[in-house]
């Protein structure tokens, strides 16, 4: 059973969102990292990049395959967890601490279409 944290929001493409005022902190779920296996590289965006909800903003690369990351909300990237460039395995070790980007949201209403922990538990299995 993969770990799902109460109080976070989730996308159907297995990203999690932690809301801090107008900022969305984005990572990938425990289910996603377990499905990927050993993550060896993360293709990260740059600060200042702008995305619409659903755009791909980077990719996780395991030994076997690459998997695109989709932004659950639209906005501007205000921080990137560059530590993951050298230590991508942190996403495997603790996916809910290893955030990937922080986005200043254009429209907080987009959060309404995301899943809560109970709803996400239904698809993450």
């Amino acid at each position, binding site marked *: 059973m993969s770990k799902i944290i109460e109080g976070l929001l989730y996308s159907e493409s297995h990203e999690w969102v932690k809301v801090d005022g107008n900022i969305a902190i984005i990572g990938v779920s425990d289910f996603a990292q377990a499905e990927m*296996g*050993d993550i*060896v*590289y993360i*293709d990260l965006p740059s600060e200042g990049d702008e995305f619409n909800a659903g755009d791909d903003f980077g*990719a996780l*690369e*395991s*030994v*076997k*395959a*690459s998997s*695109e990351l989709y932004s659950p909300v639209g906005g501007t990237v205000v921080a990137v967890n560059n530590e993951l460039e050298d230590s991508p395995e942190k996403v495997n070790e603790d996916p809910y601490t290893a955030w990937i980007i922080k986005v200043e949201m254009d429209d907080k209403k987009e959060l309404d279409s995301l899943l809560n922990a109970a709803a996400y538990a239904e698809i993450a299995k």
Partner: protein
Amino acid sequence: MSDTIKTTCLHDKHVKLGAKMSPFAGFDMPIQYSSITEEHNAVRKNVGVFDVSHMGEIFVSGKDALKYVNHVFTNDVTNLEEGKILYGMMCYPDGGVVDDLLVYKEFEDDHFLFVVNAANIDKDYRWMLENAEGFDVVIDNQSEVWGQLAIQGPASEDEVISLLGLEDSEAEEEIRNLKFYTFADAEDDKGNRVIISRTGYTGEDGYEIYATPQNINYLWDELMADGVAPCGLGCRDTLRFEAGLPLYGDELSAEISPVMAGLSMFCKLDKEEFIGKEALSAQKTDGAPRKLVGIELHDVAIPRAGYPVELEDGTQVGTVTTGYHSISLDKSICFALVDSAYSALGTALWVRVRKKSFPGEVVKKRFYQTNYKK
């Protein structure tokens, strides 16, 4: 692919070990048990075991067996001694590949064993029957009654001696002294045949053991009890790729000939005849339009199968067939099929990874220095 998925004789054991299972070549196979990286390193540094019971075993015998094998197989078995093995292909008349395979010369006149890819067993068997007209041969597909283990890595020799209980026996020296691409026969106490072959698909020293499903189960349990790492198809691919070995479907196919794949040394074009000889000779003389190359990227971006290979101006000149961030070499490398004009060592080529192209250059396909028992 058929509707019902097949399983190997060890399927229940993989599931109990918690392996990540996935369909491959029509079989439900273990992709990884712990992690691809750990399993890969177990084989490179120590020893690991693969269930390769999905592979096919087709026996050829009869008065015309030698002539027939030389007709359907690209390599030359004329002087192949008993107990020796040759790698090669079966080709279509146009030079495309039906399958790549090993041919074992059995310890009996006019007897050969073909070991073929799981995905191609039915196709190969049909092809072999269709092309047997006029030859006095018996072609016997025994793929379903043989299991197979691959025990691979620098510690495999000692492991196999202990596994088979050969310490201080006459057979110990025989098995230790087997050279790469040779094999020995053994029997269990009920008279069932066991084939012990110094072969593999990892670039390391190793053995492959063919036996009844019951014996394969027994040997697997012994290996697990001895702490040998179970290894899945995930690392089988990373290992064979680093060693520069092709995978049928990726680097060889009905469209990718052995000449294109750089494997013409396994096609004896001076042989009297074999299916595909004329087409392969012409490709060899005129030059194949596309060639398989190795590319090393000067960046950490990871090339994957299907990604475009480009020139600096973005013109596509090829396609990646297999790519990884190599576990043993810590580099981003790939095999790619490219226009022959861009296949020389050192040629600068770019690989498009998602939205960006990353520079690299053509390098030798054997990325990793292999360690076979010569």
